[in-house]
């Protein structure tokens, strides 16, 4: 690589404004890509250590919350001699607009990457405004 290596750091999620968590663990904010396609919106999140059994996606009113629980796989009888990243859960919250069809949201997890498909509602898909020529 010609360019100097970029330093990276796992981003910790902001502390919730109200109250505290019942479990004492670190929570990270996963990196996310949001892609808008013709018929849907795709949310892709990096959640290493989480699989389909430990991911929790909830939709309450307009708020889509993803929470991934990580079972820390710490080797026994070993001592940590280099630690560059912390292990903890993942949480991120998104606000949806009315253009999403809530009934048909789908999600898949593969190799630590979560993909959420948010199909667009029918009304939004065919929104065409005709312009009349002024007199």
């Amino acid at each position, binding site marked *: 690589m010609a360019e100097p290596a*970029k330093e990276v750091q796992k981003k910790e999620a902001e502390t919730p404004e109200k109250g505290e968590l019942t479990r004492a663990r670190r929570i990270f904010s996963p*990196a996310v890509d949001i892609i808008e396609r013709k018929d849907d919106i795709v949310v892709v999140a990096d959640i290493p250590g989480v699989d389909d059994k430990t991911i929790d996606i909830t939709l309450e009113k307009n708020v889509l919350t993803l929470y991934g629980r990580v079972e820390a796989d710490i080797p026994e009888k070993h001592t940590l001699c280099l630690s*560059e990243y912390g292990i903890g859960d993942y949480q991120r919250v998104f606000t949806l607009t009315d253009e999403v069809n809530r009934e048909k949201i789908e999600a898949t997890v593969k190799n630590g990457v979560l993909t959420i498909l948010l199909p667009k509602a029918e009304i939004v898909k065919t929104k065409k405004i005709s312009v009349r020529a002024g007199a």
Partner: protein
Amino acid sequence: MLWSDLEKLGRFWDPWREFERMQRSLSGRTFSSSAEFPLVNVWTSGDEAIFTTEIPGVDPKSIDISVVGKTVTIRGSRYPENLSEGASYHRRERWTGQFTKSVEMPFSIEASKVEAKFSRGVLRITAPRAEAEKPKKIAVKSD
């Protein structure tokens, strides 16, 4: 800090900043603030080292691991999805591209016995210590 020091610093002394500074110096002990991608944790015991790294979305077949002496090197890549026509990114935070990372272990590695497992986006390499370097137990004789 002595209270008399406060006068020297005058109005520029901010107790909150002081508190944050202390917190940073404490947390720096367990987690280094930043490092080169991908981030790595290494655990060791007397006869093996365990190396873990978070590289979600990488094809396990494309991960290349090489061991020379004490150094473990991993290489891999992840490419962005090909967008169909009319698609666009609203937000783009995930990394893409190729990466290489070398980590030196505290002892020489038995290269033929290295095992690697990739599950849920986490790569875990178990590297046994070279036979010649294993610590020897010395029995103490008594009369």
